[in-house]
């Protein structure tokens, strides 16, 4: 089974090579462009723009998850994929994992460029503090880790919503596009509503506190939000795999 899962995962990565390299090239290109802008914009403004791809990547990750499923029908490869002796959950799981792998690599590439910019600040005479000398470094790292994990989980949750919505559209023979759009809106609404209820139910879940972070004394992050996203993702994954296995046709 793991051999089949790995083969599917590699297939997904192989199929995404061109789009992945294009986005990676754009991120690197932006880095080079910003280097040339330092003299006119100033160092800190150019440095700030190195984070710009992160905002784009959040949406790109979710769109990619949708596109990777849609392409199977658009390119006419769905009959072959679905004729393989693997479950719908394996198909959806490998697609999600491949998209997430690409997303993580692209985020890391963006952050590497930002880090290189930061490390090179003295070259442009910018006021600069070594990372190790930043005040409350541990709290900052903790905050970035928790914030990053939440964003990553959010991307996964958005991805599975778009995949499920697309597949629900595929379960009907007519107006599948309209059904997919309606399913997307419905699923986002349902997820938001259930989140509100579940966060209240899980109010006993502990909070993570960040002390002396920038201007605030204590910044709290409730783990209930994180748990709710995990629960919702797990449920939606189960449903999406089932729809892929039992309901769609090709």
């Amino acid at each position, binding site marked *: 089974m793991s*051999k089949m899962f790995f083969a599917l995962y590699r297939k997904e990565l*192989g*199929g995404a090579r061109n789009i992945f390299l294009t986005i990676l090239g754009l991120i690197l290109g932006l880095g080079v462009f910003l280097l040339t802008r330092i003299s006119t914009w100033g160092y800190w403004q150019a440095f700030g723009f190195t984070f710009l791809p992160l905002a784009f990547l959040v949406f790109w990750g979710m769109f990619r998850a949708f596109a990777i499923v849609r392409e199977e029908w658009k*390119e*006419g*490869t*769905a009959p072959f994929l679905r*004729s393989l*002796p693997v479950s719908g959950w394996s198909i959806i799981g490998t697609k999600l994992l491949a998209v997430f792998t690409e997303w993580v690599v692209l985020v890391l590439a963006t952050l590497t460029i930002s880090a290189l910019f930061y490390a090179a600040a003295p070259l442009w005479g910018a006021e600069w503090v070594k990372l190790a000398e930043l005040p409350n470094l541990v709290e900052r790292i903790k905050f970035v880790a928790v914030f990053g994990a939440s964003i990553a989980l959010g991307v996964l949750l958005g991805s599975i919503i778009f995949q499920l919505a697309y597949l629900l559209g595929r379960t009907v023979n007519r107006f599948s596009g309209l059904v997919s759009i309606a399913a997307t809106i419905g699923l986002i609404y349902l997820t938001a509503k259930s989140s509100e209820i579940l966060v209240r139910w899980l109010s006993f879940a502990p909070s993570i506190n960040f002390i002396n972070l920038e201007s605030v004394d204590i910044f709290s992050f409730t783990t209930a939000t994180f748990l709710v996203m995990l629960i919702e993702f797990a449920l939606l994954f189960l449903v999406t795999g089932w729809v892929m296995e039992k309901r769609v*046709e090709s």
Partner: protein
Amino acid sequence: MTIPAVILDNVVKRFPLTKALDGVNLAIDPGKVVGLLGHNGSGKTTMLKIIAGLRRPTSGRVEVFGMAPGVETKKRVAFLSEVNTYYDWMTVDGLLNFVKSFHPDLCLEKAAELKEFMKLKGAAKIGALSKGQQARLKLVVGLSRQADLMLLDEPLAGIDPPSRAKILHALVGELRQEGQTVIISTHEVKEAEPIFDHVVFLREGRNVLEGDAETLRAETGHSMEELFGEVLE
């Protein structure tokens, strides 16, 4: 008692504007080469896809080796679609290795022989192959496997006439695994006729005539091609 390779019991498949299958009953014994004959739109592809587990019947019962179509039956079935369903960016060898990951019954040595027979290069990208080469590739993938049931949807489409007879004879001759059940949908009846043990004539989603090919010939005094014209026109 031998379990039939395929059972269709009053199978109906409806689409919004049409009924692709309209109460089909069929039992196919293992080891037979079955010809599924009918014009375009008669329900041949839908029937094969239902057996392969790619489509669900609206009503009726389907069994493949005694099981409902699903992951377990897909291990034993090779479905070769009429159109190219492989990934354009894969190479021929890449595809064979990919399929091997799911079907250990795929023999790479046999695949190498078949590639040579079909004049295909392992390093060639699937998207760069001609329609005829893609049709040959499907056969390479299907015939390299020791699948218990082969479903071939219009396997001769896109293949040049001189090669067809050669490929057909290879299909049921030296390349076919012993005991393998093969269902071939086609409207190229004249060329395929000699290889069929059993034939099913489909018209508007119904099997209007079915039986042992030899018996039908003897009883009616007609060839399959003549019967095709008589029954389906």
